[in-house]
């Protein structure tokens, strides 16, 4: 269920994230962004992916703030904010992550620019690499 295999299509994503970098794939042939990754590109009937370094910058697509202590979230202090972030540099494909630096009562603006850093989430006995996003405007560096 949760264990990764080196044969998994997303193994390069995890390998890069462990090194603090975001890698996302395009079709080797037609260049369309695929996330989640595919073995076969149905757009151009070809096989194989190219992986690219992507800056940790995106826009909030949606969010939820979790208050209930669901089993499996013991490693996260409640409440925590989960965000779905669209990555413009990767064809607006979306990643799940956590939002840091917002007050517990503050609404999270959909569409807001965010920047990220790589951290880890403890899940059971494992540490999974994850992206911690923060509102870019907080740094005064939003464009």
């Amino acid at each position, binding site marked *: *269920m*949760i264990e*990764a295999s080196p044969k998994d299509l*997303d193994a390069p994503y*995890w390998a890069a994230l462990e090194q603090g970098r975001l890698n996302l794939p395009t079709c080797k042939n037609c260049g369309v962004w695929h*996330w*989640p990754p595919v073995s076969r590109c149905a757009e151009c009937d070809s096989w194989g992916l190219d992986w690219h370094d992507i800056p940790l910058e995106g826009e909030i*697509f*949606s*969010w*939820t*703030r*979790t*208050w*209930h202590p*669901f*089993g*499996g*979230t013991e490693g*996260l202090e409640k*409440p*925590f904010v*989960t*965000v*779905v972030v669209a990555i413009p540099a990767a064809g*607006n*494909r*979306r*990643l*799940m*992550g*956590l939002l840091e630096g917002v007050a517990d009562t503050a609404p999270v603006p*959909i*569409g807001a620019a965010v920047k990220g850093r790589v951290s880890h*989430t403890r*899940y059971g006995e494992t540490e*999974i*690499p*994850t992206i911690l996003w923060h509102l870019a405007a907080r740094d005064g560096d939003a464009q």
Partner: protein
Amino acid sequence: MNKALFGKTAVAGVGVQQFKRGTAPYSERECLVRAIIQACEDAGLDPADVDGFVSYGDDKNEPVRLMSDLGTKELNWTQTVFGGGGGGIAAAFGSAAGAILTGQAKAVIVFRALVQDASGRLSAAVMAHHLNPHMAAAGLVAPAQVCALRAQRLFGYHGVPAETAEAFLQACYYHGSRNPAAVAYGSEFDHDAYMASRMIAEPFHLFDCSRENDGAGALLLVSAEHARDLRRPPVHLLGVTQGAEKGWGDLLENDDADLYASGGFGSVARRLWEQTDLTPTDIDVAQIYENFSAQGVTSLIDHGFCTYESASEFIRFENLIAPSGQLPVNTHGGNTAQGFIHGIGIALEAVQCLRGESANPVPDAKTCLLAGGPGAPIVSSAIFGTAAMV
């Protein structure tokens, strides 16, 4: 119209055993056997003559193990619908009808059984289907959180007022409070209590979430011809569709932007109307699987009863209650206020409301929409009708 399907099979009997979560006095299998016996007695059919079984959502009760208790003479057909959520509920009737109409089985039980000490928590079982490191790393471990992400987009981007979700719940509780078989019997919905109920995952309060029950439900499907010889008024299956369209599915939250906040019924609903030659205005009552309040709202939008823009006009309390609302929904109380055995109660009420047995009757109702599993990667819908429709 798909003439091969429309009105050719019918539900001839129903049975249910429902208990508070964790309190079933029987094992999961015995709950199921008792529900099946009830359904057969309701129909006036010897349980030994049931020769087919279908379930959904990872039910663990392999029909072959029921044979001794039921006295099954021949087990001729078994199947389960893919998907860990409630999205397979209507699809199970489609499978059963396919088996009956092609002569693979004569009398098929559609069932779902869930007793916590046998199957654990439903939410955990559903999530086991989907959970992956991407989700776990973002703290997403429960269906409530995933549906909450969709709901925030529905409210915060598409501009559907959150009041529609409350109106949907209010209708469920109105019906449940008047249904002696409902968990919410006698308890009126209270806006202040709703808002004060603890936050689970924003925007969902506790009251926005369905809560699990122990129990089992069974519905007996036979050919329309066969049903006419049985005890109860047949409730015909008029049409059924299942699936997902391109851009929807288990996609790490990468569903197409215009589908993301939906219930995932796009192609399923379109094909249901095409298949039956019916339109939303032909539907008299609807049983809508509301795992979470906002997903009830999106189910109504997906099936064309309203749009994002007109949702607040259509999804009003007065409009959703029996007997006089334009579209009474969840006339037994729904998953939230009647009880939740992975949604089988929604299918039971679809049949019982058309037999005139609902605790909240809809006079002269001839058609009922059943919509299953909004937000799940695979969803399904069906329309049932009285004899007047065929």
